[in-house]
Structure formats: structure tokens, C-alpha cells
């Protein structure tokens, strides 16, 4: 009785399970050679376009930082930059003046 059971599992159940998974695996991942070549080409194209895009974005970034905001005027931006720089330098001198006595006290 026991040997029959073991034989049944070995020669019937195992092959059934095996072939079940083989058929499942065969039907699951179906991609033809043409599809594969197409996918490969598209992937490559996307990578190259990405590289070019990065280059162009870098060039524009160097030309005008803050170009991403739509209504941004490069001339105004430069003027704003100057004023803020001036303010900053004023502040720095003020802070420097303010700091000196503190340093002396120490």
C-alpha cells in the first residue's frame, strides 16, 4: 500500500506539478524577437535623449539660473541679483562693525 502511494507521488504527481509550471512559465513571458528588438531600441533611444536633455538643461542653467519659472526675466533677475548683493555687502559691513566691539570686550 505504502509503495503504491510513493510510486504514485513520484511518477504521477511530480510530473504533473512540473509540467504545470513549465506550461505556465511558457505562456507567461511571451515576447517575440521583434518586440524585444523594438524595446531594446526604444530603451537605448530614451537613454540617449535623456543625455542630450541633461546637456541642454545644463547649458541653460549656466546661462540663466532660475529659467524654470515661466515669467522669469533674465535682465530683471540680474538687476535683482545686484541689489541683493549690494544689500548683503551692506549687511556684512554693518555686522562687521557690530561685531568688532564684542571681539574687543572678550
Amino acid at each position: 500500500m505504502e509503495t503504491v502511494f510513493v510510486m504514485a507521488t513520484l511518477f504521477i504527481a511530480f510530473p504533473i506539478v512540473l509540467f504545470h509550471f513549465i506550461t505556465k512559465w511558457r505562456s507567461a513571458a511571451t515576447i517575440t524577437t521583434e518586440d524585444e528588438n523594438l524595446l531594446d531600441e526604444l530603451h537605448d533611444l530614451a537613454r540617449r535623449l535623456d543625455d542630450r536633455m541633461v546637456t541642454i538643461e545644463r547649458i541653460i542653467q549656466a546661462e540663466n539660473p532660475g529659467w524654470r519659472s515661466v515669467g522669469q526675466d533674465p535682465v530683471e533677475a540680474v538687476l535683482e541679483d545686484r541689489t541683493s548683493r549690494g544689500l548683503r555687502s551692506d549687511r556684512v559691513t554693518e555686522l562687521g562693525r557690530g561685531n568688532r566691539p564684542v571681539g574687543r570686550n572678550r
Partner: protein
Amino acid sequence: MRSPHTKFYLDKLNAKWSGVCAGISDYTGIDVTVVRIGFVLSLFIIGPMAIFAYFLTSWLAPRKPIELYARNPEEQKFWQGVRANPRRTARDVRSRFRDLDRRLADVETYVTSSNNRLANEIEQLR
């Protein structure tokens, strides 16, 4: 007929013995050490069946053609994704193209609007 990139191969370059475990690792993207440990564990669980399966695979499966070895790991990962789920990979590629389209639109907006501004400045100078 299965296409060359989605077939199972013996990976002879990373092989310890005949390249079955390395081939499984290359096919699925699971780390090769994990596959080997899993194989050794399966020896204890199903015993001689595992050894039989190993030799059957090493006898039947073709060795990996040298031109298919990926030059960069990114390419290898891409093909592992294709093997696991080609549809998802296609969606990934599409989303990359959409991203490119969006960024190109940004650049286009910037270039056209700055050209407009330049034209206005020139008009004012006349």
C-alpha cells in the same frame, strides 16, 4: 521561438561549477550567493532530485553567447526586468519618454519666451 535576450543560459563567466546557479541568478536578478545557498538547502529537502535537475539543466541549457554579456549593469537590470515582466518594462520606457517630453516642453517655453523678450527690447530701441 524565444528571443535571444529572454532565454535561459548557463553563465560560464560567473560559474562556480557549470554555471547553472549563476545562470539562474543572471536570469532572475537574485544574488548568486542566495541562489547557491538555496540550491544546497534544496539538496537536503528533495535530495537526489536536485542533483538530477542540476545535471539535466547543465546538459540541456545552452551557454550564454559572449555578445549578450552586458557592458554595464544598468543594461543587465533592464533585461532582467524584461524577462520578469515585459509589459511593465514597456510602461517604464513610456514614462521615460513622457518625462523627456515634459522637460523638452519646459526648455521650449523658456527659449521661445526669451526670444520674444529680445524682440521686444529691439523694438523699443528703434
